[in-house]
Each structure stands twice: as structure tokens, then as C-alpha cells.
């Protein structure tokens, strides 16, 4: 066993390595692709749990990990609380989506491209782990590019007209986002002469008075770039098409994980690279707060009028990513000790990852079993697809924020945080959006169970266990994080504390 401080790099390099081996396997041993991919992500999950344990209990990750031993010059990987939390979320949810995907992809993809899907999936997982771990601005850019390309590819792999159009839109807009990021990094490099986040933070604190304009431009470009990538409200236009037309496992991983990792990267950079004085001078957190508020309200309103179930879930993702950004926005630089809202926002990353990927999987199961895509066709399917619709009740309860589900805990923390910084208006926003969520989630399962069935002559294909079990596990996790969120919140409180210093 290698020492634990090598785990982060073994995880990223191993996932990329297996991603490259996957096409070779596909040529020689076609049946091995799926088990190898599952094995890889399981090992990564175990490693990320080891990392999170070591971060909380031990001290192996106090020092960063320098690639090639180039201390203070090279690329640094640093596992702090936030990144190890994100690693566990990525690999936990990613593993379940992959297990689900094996059943679903047999129907959705043609034989020829299925081996490539696992390549892309492992690339995506490896690059997302890299984004969470890296402490170097340019390395982050490289991983962002890998995530963007492989995310586009797992949308367009279905090769129908809708998917190609959606992924092209996504490609262009996310390239714009990456461009903004690169410009911002160039600005930061101009001021500080470093790429390493810690050193940038130290140097930038010295240069605040001298280069206020450069820092301001760098910060706004950074927020715009990550806003485009994670679909913050006015920059969300690519998301609904992309997430609705992709194959269901891709939608689950894109909505559940990919848009969150950019939010985590923004938190990392905003709080560690930019000095607190700048955040006090510039109302950046207020801007993020209002954008997220608009996103929460309008995302729900757009979701209400959708006919396609997956499109409704996609618009709902815009509203839900608003909560994550609301957590960032409610952070008040004048009162850095009030961190509850930020904890709530970061907690919502986990909760939304679990529940939204679960809902996309249920959408996939309904399409797999009966071929139904429109919400109005769902009347009476509760009798035929009992378990998926039961789990759907848990998921929508969590979306609305009913107690004992995960969604309630994150909304509770956000609301308490809003009160702590004297902004009770945003409590009203949270309540209003919960009501809006109820308006479009509740009728679906009420109609599914109580309406007359219209599907006497539709044949419901039996759903294989490999597709059902991940959904059930995720449903259990939603309840678990609603009843006993204490360990997660403990990790996140330490994460926020170490970020704010």
C-alpha cells in the first residue's frame, strides 16, 4: 500500500489511466469494460473516504503534494476539507450513476459507441477529482477543459439531432466560460507572478492598494466564467437543452455533479485567492446573491410550464444551483464569523447531487420501461411502476424541503444564515421557492397514483435490478442526510473555517 499522501494523485492518474485503457479493452475484451469502470470508481470512492478520514483525523495532508517534487514551482495537489468532501460526493454519486447506466445505456446507445462512453465517464470523473484537488490555477484550467470536452461528448454520444444541437450550444458557451477564466488567470498572474493559489492569496493581499482595477476585473471574469459553467441564472441558457436531451445517466451526472464542481472551484478561488479587503470593497457577494435569487425564482417558474419531464428537472437544476450560490452570496465579508449560510450552500451540493441524479434516473427508468417522456402521460403509472414512483415521492419531498429529507436541512441552514446576517428577505425567497417547487413536483406523483390509468395498452418493460438498486440507495441517502446530517455538517464547518481564515 502506498502512503496516504499519494492517494489524491493515484486517484486522478488511475482514473485517467483506466480511461485510456478502456478503448483497448473494448477492442480485446468487450465485456470487461463495465466491471473495470465500476471497479475503478469503487476504488476511487474508498480512497476518497480514506482521504476524508485522514483530513479530519490525521495530519498527512497538512502539506500539499508537489508533482515531481518541484516544491514551490510545480503543480500542487492539496486535499483540504472542501475538496475531500467534494471527492466523496463525486465518487459516491458517480458510482451509483455508473451502475445504473449499464442497464440504461444498453437501450439508449448503439453498440459501437458504448465502450467509448466508459472512457468519457472515467475521464470526466478523473478530471472532476483533479478540479477538486488542484491548488494551481493553470492546472485547474486544464482539468476544466477536460471536464468541458468530456461533458459535451457524453451528451452528443447519442447522436440524434437534439443532442448534437444541445452539445454544440454547451460547447460554445462553456468555451466562452473557459476563455473568461483564462483571461482572469492572466490578470492574476500579471499582478502576482504566481499560479499557486496559496501564494496568489498571499501576494494579492500585498497588491490590493496598487492594482485595484486588475483585481476587480480578474474577480468579475472569474465569477462570470464559473457562472456560465455552473448555470447561474442569466447565464444558464445552455443547461435545459443539454441536460434534457442527453442520455439519462449523462443527465444525472451533469446535473448532479458537473455543475457543482465549478461552484466548489469558485468558492476555493474566491475565498483563498482574493483578499478579504477586496470582498469588502466590492459587492461581489451581493451580486452573486441577487443572481442566485433570480435563478431560484425564475428557474422554478420556467420549470412549471415544461411538458417534458427531463426538461422540467433541468430547469429545476437552475433553481437548485441557485441555493448553492445563495450560500456564497449570503456570506458577509463584514461579518466573516457568520458562516451558516455558506455551510448550507455547500451542504446543498451533496443533497442536490443525491436527489437530482436520483430524479433523472427515475426519469430514465420511466423512459426505459414505458417510453413516456411527457408529464401529462404520467397519470396512473404509479400502479405499474410502484417503486420508482415511491422513491420519486421522497425525491420531490426533498426538493420542496419537507423535514426528514436532505433538502430541508440545507434550506434550514440557508435560512438561519440569512437571519444571522440580517437579511430576512431571503428567508422569504427560500419559502416562496419551496412553494413553487411544490407546485410542479407534487402533481406528478399525485396524478401518478390517484388518476385513472391511460396505459392499458402500453406494455411496461420490467426494470432490471441494476437500475433499481442505485435509485433505492440514493432514496435512502436522501432520508439519511435529512435525519442525521451531523457528520457532513461537521466537515463543512471545518471546511468553511479553514477557507475564511
Amino acid at each position, binding site marked *: 500500500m502506498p502512503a496516504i499522501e499519494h492517494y489524491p*494523485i493515484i486517484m486522478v*492518474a488511475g482514473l485517467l489511466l483506466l480511461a485510456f485503457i478502456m478503448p483497448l479493452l473494448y*477492442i480485446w475484451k468487450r465485456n470487461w469494460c463495465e466491471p473495470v469502470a465500476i471497479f475503478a470508481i469503487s476504488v476511487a470512492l474508498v480512497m476518497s473516504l480514506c482521504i476524508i478520514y485522514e483530513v479530519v483525523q490525521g495530519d498527512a495532508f497538512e502539506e500539499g503534494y508537489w508533482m515531481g517534487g518541484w516544491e514551490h514551482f510545480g503543480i500542487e495537489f492539496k486535499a483540504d476539507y472542501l475538496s475531500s468532501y467534494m471527492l466523496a460526493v463525486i465518487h459516491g454519486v458517480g458510482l451509483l450513476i455508473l451502475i445504473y447506466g449499464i442497464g440504461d445505456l444498453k437501450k439508449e446507445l448503439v453498440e459501437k459507441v458504448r465502450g467509448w462512453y466508459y472512457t468519457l465517464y472515467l475521464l470526466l470523473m478523473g478530471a472532476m477529482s483533479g478540479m477538486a484537488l488542484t491548488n494551481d490555477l493553470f492546472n485547474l484550467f486544464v482539468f476544466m477543459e477536460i471536464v468541458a470536452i468530456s461533458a459535451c461528448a457524453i451528451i452528443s454520444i447519442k447522436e440524434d439531432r437534439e443532442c448534437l444541437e444541445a452539445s454544440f450550444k454547451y460547447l460554445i458557451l462553456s468555451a466562452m466560460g473557459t476563455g473568461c477564466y483564462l483571461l482572469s488567470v492572466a490578470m492574476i498572474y500579471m499582478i502576482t507572478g504566481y499560479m499557486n493559489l496559496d501564494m496568489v492569496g498571499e501576494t494579492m493581499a500585498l497588491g490590493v492598494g496598487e492594482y485595484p482595477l486588475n483585481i476587480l476585473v480578474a474577480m468579475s471574469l472569474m465569477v462570470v466564467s464559473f457562472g456560465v459553467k455552473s448555470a447561474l441564472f442569466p447565464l444558464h441558457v445552455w443547461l435545459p437543452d443539454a441536460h434534457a436531451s442527453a442520455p439519462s445517466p449523462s443527465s444525472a451526472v451533469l446535473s448532479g455533479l458537473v455543475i457543482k464542481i465549478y461552484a466548489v472551484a469558485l468558492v476555493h478561488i474566491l475565498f483563498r485567492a482574493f483578499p478579504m479587503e477586496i470582498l469588502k470593497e466590492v459587492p461581489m457577494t451581493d451580486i452573486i446573491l441577487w443572481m442566485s435569487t433570480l435563478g431560484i425564482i425564475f428557474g422554478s417558474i420556467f420549470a412549471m410550464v415544461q411538458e417534458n419531464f427531463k426538461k422540467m428537472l433541468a430547469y429545476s437544476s437552475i433553481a437548485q444551483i441557485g441555493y448553492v450560490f445563495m450560500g456564497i452570496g449570503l456570506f458577509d465579508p463584514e461579518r466573516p464569523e457568520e458562516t451558516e449560510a455558506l455551510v448550507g450552500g455547500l451542504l446543498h451540493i451533496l443533497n442536490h447531487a443525491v436527489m437530482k441524479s436520483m430524479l433523472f434516473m427515475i426519469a430514465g427508468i420511466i423512459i426505459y420501461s414505458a417510453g413516456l417522456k411527457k408529464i401529462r402521460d404520467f397519470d396512473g403509472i404509479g400502479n405499474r411502476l410502484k417503486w420508482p414512483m415511491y422513491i420519486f415521492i421522497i425525491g420531490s419531498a426533498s426538493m420542496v424541503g419537507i423535514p426528514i429529507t436532505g433538502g430541508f436541512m440545507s434550506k434550514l441552514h440557508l435560512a438561519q444564515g440569512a437571519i444571522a446576517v440580517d437579511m430576512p428577505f431571503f428567508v422569504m425567497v427560500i419559502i416562496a421557492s419551496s412553494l413553487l417547487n411544490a407546485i410542479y413536483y407534487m402533481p406528478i406523483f399525485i396524478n401518478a397514483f390517484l388518476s385513472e390509468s391511460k396505459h392499458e395498452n402500453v406494455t411496461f418493460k420490467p426494470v432490471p435490478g441494476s437500475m433499481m438498486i442505485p435509485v433505492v440507495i440514493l432514496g435512502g441517502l436522501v432520508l439519511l442526510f435529512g435525519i442525521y446530517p451531523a457528520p457532513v455538517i461537521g466537515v463543512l464547518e471545518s471546511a468553511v473555517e479553514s477557507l475564511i481564515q
Partner: protein
Amino acid sequence: MEDQIVRMICRVIVPFIQIYGMFIIIFGHLSPGGGFAGGAIAGASMVLFALSFNLQAGSKKISEESASLLESGGALVFVLAGVVALVLGANYLTNLEAGFPAGTPGRLFSAGVIPVITLGLGLKVTSSIVTLFYHLIGGEEEEH
């Protein structure tokens, strides 16, 4: 289009282009250039060949399957070179401190693991260009 002059010139010029590409890849750690530049040149030679003859003749030289094998192989070399350093007990991608031989500075066999990585990169870029070209051409043929 079958043009005798173009084909003849191509036949003569392709080996030289390939040797030049290989030179740039192999001397990547000593002279300007390296895996990316050399790989692009070597890949361009295959593109030139397939353009002046036709796709079938080109894919006889490097089939699409072997191109994607080479592509994965090139990337594997890079990752594995990093893992070797891990096995030797240093950080990922460590070069001389991990015990790779330094050789004589300025000669071909020097700089530890860097020539290996450049070679892997060169393979990867060459086969990527060839694969991309095949896919672009192949896609057009399917539509018509």
C-alpha cells in the same frame, strides 16, 4: 482526383516529412520542438498521403483501429512514466530525484524520463491527428 505528379511528389516527400517529425520528437528534450510539434508533423505526413492517394490507401498504412490503439498507448506511456516514479518512492512524475539515469547533458540519452514522455506524447499526437482526419473524412462519406 488522380494526379500522377502529386502522387509521385508525395511518395518522395512523405518519408522525409516523417523522419523530420521523428527527429523533432526524439530530440524534444534537446532542441526546440518536442512531442506536440513533432507529432503534428508526423501526423500531417499521413494526412498528406491519404489526401494525395485516397482514404483506402491511407488506412492500409495505419488502420483506424491501430491509430486509436497508438493514441491510447501514447497517453498510457505518459501516465505510467509518472507512476514509475511513484513506485520508486518519490512524488508523481518525479524525474532525476526518483532515480532515473541522468546521462550526459546535451547528448541524446539524457534528462531521465523526459525523452520517454516526449516519445509518448509524439505517438499520441500523431495518432490523434490521423484519427481526427479519418473521422472527418469518414463522416462525410457516410452522409453521401
